[in-house]
């Protein structure tokens, strides 16, 4: 029984979240005793999927088959799944997975679980863990239908690339009959070099404790030294100090980086919900009673305006010594 992984690309390169999903799909295929097949959308470097265990790649080379037009991607997935006899389809739970996976579920009748954080337990069905209540809890969910779809929470597994190669073949699918009426007019900012928040391994975030948008220079400096992505708390986005897309928390972006540094954020329950999947949390706050310290691995009780420049200096020294 083979597993089909839907792999999206950005500027022709396999997205990091898709590579992680491919690795997951390869593990599932191994436990089911089947082949791991990737369906790539206009990939230039599809062979990289071999390094995470994919056996075979079907590469669609038709720019109109993109996540902007989910119906066309669904048609390609159905054709590919039929061709290779796939009973399990794996997505990354990113903008592509969110646009396409539900549509595939409704079309095929295959049960879907998103935000998945574990490999399936096959002992009593097909049970996967997922995050619920915005990361405040998790749930085990059994997929009841014969065909299954899972969508993997980015950064839940990490990518451990090894040796291995995948055969890549062109896959053509006729989507001329699908007219969804969607036209992409413009792409804004999608080509930025900054790692998007849901995929970021290092995140530097700040809140109201910084007193004003003019004080974000030292936060951006830290992000630059570390190669991190910047984020913020909800109040800061709401008053317009920072753009909305930087807001992490229950009603913003949920993230799970390797390192989350929170500066001048008290740690309201809604904020914690969006960040408590982070592997290591550092909290810098002058209030020793800030609730965030209870969720932190490392804490610094001190004035951000003194501590952050000092920390930036220490990071810079470390980077100079360690490359």
């Amino acid at each position, binding site marked *: 029984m083979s597993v089909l992984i839907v792999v999206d690309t950005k500027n022709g390169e396999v997205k990091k979240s898709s590579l992680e999903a491919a690795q997951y799909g390869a593990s599932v295929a191994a436990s089911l005793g089947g082949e791991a097949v990737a369906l790539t959308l206009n990939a230039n470097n599809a062979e990289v999927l071999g390094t995470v265990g994919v056996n075979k790649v079907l590469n669609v080379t038709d720019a109109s088959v993109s996540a*902007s037009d*989910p119906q066309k991607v669904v048609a390609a997935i159905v054709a590919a799944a039929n061709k290779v006899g796939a009973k399990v389809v794996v997505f990354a739970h990113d903008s592509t997975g969110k646009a396409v996976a539900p549509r595939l579920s409704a079309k095929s009748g295959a049960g879907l679980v998103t*935000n998945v954080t574990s490999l399936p337990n096959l002992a009593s069905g097909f049970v996967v863990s997922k995050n619920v209540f915005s990361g*405040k809890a998790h749930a085990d969910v059994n997929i*009841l239908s014969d065909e299954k779809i899972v969508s993997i929470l980015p950064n839940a597994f990490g990518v451990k690339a090894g040796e291995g190669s995948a055969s890549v073949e062109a896959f053509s699918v006729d989507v001329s009959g699908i007219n969804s*009426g969607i036209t992409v007019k413009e792409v804004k900012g999608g080509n930025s070099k900054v790692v998007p928040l849901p995929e970021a391994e290092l995140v530097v975030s700040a809140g109201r404790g910084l007193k004003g948008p003019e004080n974000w220079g030292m936060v951006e400096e830290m992000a630059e030294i570390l190669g991190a992505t910047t984020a913020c708390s909800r109040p800061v986005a709401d008053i317009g100090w920072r753009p909305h897309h930087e807001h992490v928390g229950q009603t913003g972006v949920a993230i799970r980086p390797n390192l989350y540094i929170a500066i001048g954020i008290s740690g309201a329950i809604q904020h914690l919900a969006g960040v408590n999947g982070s592997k290591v949390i550092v909290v810098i706050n002058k209030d020793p009673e800030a609730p965030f310290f209870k969720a932190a691995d490392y804490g610094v009780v001190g004035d951000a305006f003194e501590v952050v420049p000092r920390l930036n200096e220490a990071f810079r020294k470390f980077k100079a010594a360690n490359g």
Partner: protein
Amino acid sequence: MKILVPISKVPDTTSKIAFTDGDSKFNEEGIQWIVNPYDEWYALVRALELVEAGGGTVTVINVGDATADPVIRKALALGANEAVRVDVNPSDSYVIAKEIAAYANDKGFDMVLLGKETISYNGSEVGGMLAEFMNLPYISLASKLEVNGDTATLDRSIEGGSEVVEVKLPLVASASKGMAEQRIPNMRGIMAARSKPLTVVPASGAEAKTAYVKYGLPAPKSAVKLVDPENMDELVRLLHEEAKSI
């Protein structure tokens, strides 16, 4: 314009999350229920703005039992014209989407607008499923929505940016932050909501594709390690040697 806004009933964002019956059920004791913020703050408010500007009606729909009625009334208090509740346990997204489609398919809605996900199950599933069941285009994670005649222009969030898409009505779109600003219902709205129609319709019998077996809470964090604010070299050393995160 006729707009349908599916809404979910979710625990208030400050709720303490706990489980009962051998961790098989969410513990509802003491929970304050609210309209899912993405459904209310962004989808519903934007729908109301569009109708205020160009005429039409906003219908809210919920799949659930009578315990959802108070949050449905809240949506009516904010300005929705009428409400529908499909009377069935919303056991998974597939059931919810199929039941909404069963109601909506022959009603001639120009637009279905809902939140990008619920803050309870975080599925991001119902919108896409609904679009397929209704055979309509789907724009996910929209942070902006304008309508001009029979064409809508939306900003769809993608990693690190957004794309501007144009699509002919009717459509399904999921709303994220930025689409509108939260509104607070006023007294007149709350009074008017009492007499607005809330129609309860029977379910069509959709069957769940998934089953929630067991819930759990994250393992508690060990105590925070405090570092001297004068000694940031020590913090960097810990992050490198102990946490191995840099």
